[in-house]
């Protein structure tokens, strides 16, 4: 996030793109609700009806994967009507003319055609956004899990800079991180193309510093992303894999392929806190301590480095991942792993990641510190880019709309979207073992629009088979207008009906994010089981 969670409630306009905030980032949605109570306009761009829709000023339910078109048309209108912030663009940015030129054909009429949103709505949203004092953009994986995932992020940044909504409070471009420490894992360089602190591995100077520090030569070409590793494994070129705390089988797209790939690896090590579908495939499964059983730091979506306290001892032989890695390095004879505890590791981190330089455990305390924090005197940074952008001037990066990779056809007429619900989390490793959450959302289900349900003669609670080119799953239908006609939605938490059997592994060419939010599917009504045996009202809200 360029800005902080606390600032959201003071924004005068919030643009929420592809985020079911209430269900997935509940406490952040609380800030959005507070902003609306304070009179903020709320514009939602999301094909699905979400809980925030009922308090929104506008809900643009566009066709999945067409966000870029919609936003480009909004920008064109803003420029055409001279609603953009000329001072900001002049002083702080470059490449405006290129952006303007690139938007030439992005008329509202065109965007309306592509996205299915009426021209008047697009124009109204554009004017509202441009007219707002502090407009804050909040987006999540609904926006980015597309083949055009990078484009949408650029488009949002363009829109934000165009209207001068960067570098001031209650504005900015704010991705909501789905997991407690995605931000930190990226900061730490657990990425194939970057070293800690986002130093590119191909950057000779940057790499050199690490080579000197670690006393070892680092390969200069970027490594493989998870989807690419899976490809390699499938091709028989990946012989050893170490998975630390991830249920890859359920979380990656096209599960059947993932299972095959993992089976194909000669030696697979999986570390986890629970028995999962992935540990079941491991040659060695190593028991890990969970968050309550170890000390360390997490970095939240607002760049807040926070302390995780150890409350209890882990069960049995389980050890913290840190201890396991240190012992592993010890056995392997690797140098530079002589750490007694997380504090010592953290102090090394502060030496290699400039944004963390001024942070230590004492300063983190119970309230955390937001990076960048360059020195022990620096108080941390509430919002980024106040005076200047990291690279100096903010660069507009023109983007061209690309449709999703797999669109519905006669055989597979529905657009399948996947996501989470409020009471389960990711692959359910934790939530499905928590009775009070499991009771709320015990059964896998597919959301179907009432008119589609009628077409397919499906009633709420019926068992249906959903299939795509990659596989099929059986689950219950939930008939609801939360999804538009021609679209279906399946939460991916459930191993008994894993949605990722269905999903497409088409990747964004730049950052390799899979297109989990759009693929083509069909519905087949299965045998109807006793409806009463499961939660009837929930499934049949119509």
């Amino acid at each position, binding site marked *: 996030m360029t800005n902080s969670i606390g600032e959201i409630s003071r924004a005068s306009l919030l643009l929420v793109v592809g985020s079911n905030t*209430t*269900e997935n980032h*509940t*406490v952040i*949605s*609380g800030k959005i*609700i*507070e902003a609306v*109570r304070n009179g903020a306009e709320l514009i939602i761009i999301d094909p699905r009806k979400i*809980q925030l829709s*009922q*308090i929104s000023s506008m809900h643009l339910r566009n066709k999945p994967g067409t966000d870029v078109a919609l936003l480009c048309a909004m920008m064109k209108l803003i420029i055409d009507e001279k609603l953009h912030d000329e001072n900001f663009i002049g002083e702080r940015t470059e490449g405006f003319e290129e952006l303007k030129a690139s938007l030439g054909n992005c008329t509202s009429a065109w965007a309306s055609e592509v996205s299915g949103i009426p021209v008047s709505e697009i124009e109204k949203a554009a004017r509202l956004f441009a007219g707002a004092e502090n407009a804050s953009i909040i987006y999540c994986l609904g926006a980015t899990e597309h083949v055009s995932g990078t484009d949408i992020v650029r488009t949002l940044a363009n829109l934000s800079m165009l209207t001068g909504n960067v570098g001031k409070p209650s504005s900015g471009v704010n991705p909501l991180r789905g997991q407690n420490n995605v931000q930190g894992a990226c900061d730490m360089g657990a990425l194939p193309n970057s070293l800690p602190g986002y130093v590119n591995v191909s950057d000779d100077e940057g790499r050199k510093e690490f080579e000197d520090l670690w006393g070892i030569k680092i390969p200069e070409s970027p490594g493989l992303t998870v989807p690419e590793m899976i490809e390699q494994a499938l091709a028989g070129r990946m012989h050893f894999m170490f998975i630390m705390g991830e249920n890859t089988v359920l979380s990656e797209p096209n599960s059947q392929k993932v299972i095959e790939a993992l089976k194909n690896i000669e030696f697979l090590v999986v570390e986890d806190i629970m028995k999962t579908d992935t540990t079941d495939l491991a040659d060695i499964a190593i028991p890990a301590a969970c968050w309550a059983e170890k000390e360390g730091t997490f970095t939240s979506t607002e760049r807040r480095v926070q302390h995780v306290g150890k409350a209890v001892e882990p069960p049995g032989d389980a050890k913290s991942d840190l201890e396991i890695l240190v012992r592993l390095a010890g056995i392997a004879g690797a140098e530079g792993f002589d750490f007694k505890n997380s504090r010592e590791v953290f102090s090394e981190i502060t030496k290699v990641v400039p944004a963390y330089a001024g942070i230590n455990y004492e300063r983190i*305390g*119970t*309230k955390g510190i937001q990076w960048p924090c360059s020195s022990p005197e620096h108080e941390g940074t509430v919002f980024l880019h106040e005076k200047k952008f990291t690279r100096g001037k903010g660069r507009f990066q023109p983007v061209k709309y690309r449709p999703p990779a797999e669109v519905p056809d006669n055989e597979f007429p529905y657009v399948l979207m996947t996501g989470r*619900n*409020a*009471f389960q989390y990711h692959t359910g490793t934790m939530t499905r073992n928590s009775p*009070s959450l499991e*009771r*709320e*959302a*015990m059964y896998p289900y597919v959301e179907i629009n009432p008119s589609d349900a009628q077409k397919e003669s499906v009633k709420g609670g019926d068992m249906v088979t959903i299939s795509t080119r990659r596989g099929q799953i059986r689950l219950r239908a939930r008939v609801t207008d939360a999804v538009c006609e021609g679209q279906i939605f399946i939460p991916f938490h459930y191993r008994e009906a894993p949605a990722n059997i269905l999903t497409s592994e088409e990747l964004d060419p730049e950052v390799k994010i899979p297109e989990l939010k759009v693929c083509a599917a069909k519905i087949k009504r299965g045998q109807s089981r006793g409806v009463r045996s499961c*939660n009837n*009202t*929930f499934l049949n*809200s119509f």
Partner: protein
Amino acid sequence: MSVKEEAKNLLGKGMDGVLFYQMKDGSAIPHLFTSKDIDEMPDVREIPDSERYPLSDILSKLLMRFSSAKFGIVARGCDERAIIELEKHQQIDTSRVSLIGFACSPELAKICSCSKPYTESLADEMNEAQEISRGIESVERMSTPARLGFWLSNFSVCVKCMGCRNICPLCFCKECSLQDEDLVESGVLPPSIPTFHLLRAIDMAGRCVMCGLCEEACPAGIPLRTLYGKVSEIVREELGYVPGTRGVKSPLEELGSSVGSDDDLKS
């Protein structure tokens, strides 16, 4: 005498621990002080106003877990009221509890709209409590449809975190009506409107000690104090009962205790 000295006295008199807050990196967190660390007990003035926790609920858990231990507690007015009410529901055995009372700051009392921001032991030194409306009047001034709109829109942003129930010192039932499938459908957001919130309001009747922790815990900012405050007002005015006061149990808990005059009832 400071609370620390009073707490030390209690430990000297055979108490096993004293429940209060510990200051950790600028945050107040609940902690049970024993003779080992009693010296670290902070003064009541060090506790930030915004950092209150359901100490009475924690005390109840401790009493059940350590079935013969005796505890002291450094309590605010609302903690004490909750303890009294919990005792009436057999959730706390006060013969194993000693209470050290303190008064909240005037600022906090104002934020909480609290009419009794101190414990009974301090009642003589304090000014006569004044009754403060908790937004009830302004809701009542609305027209009936506006009132309905106000509440339904507030309920509609509920995220069913159960924070209001979880943090409530008076919510101790093993089986919760909010998890009754017949009343509140599971898995649906917002939870059944308005049933979910009315159920909780009804359950608060004759119990709510107006500590306000529910409203503070609500991520959606629903004005729960106002809702439960109204229920408490009805119970006080119609049934003559104020939760958290010593003496009789709530008339809603007891079958047959008489209410009003028989003439009232016959009409």
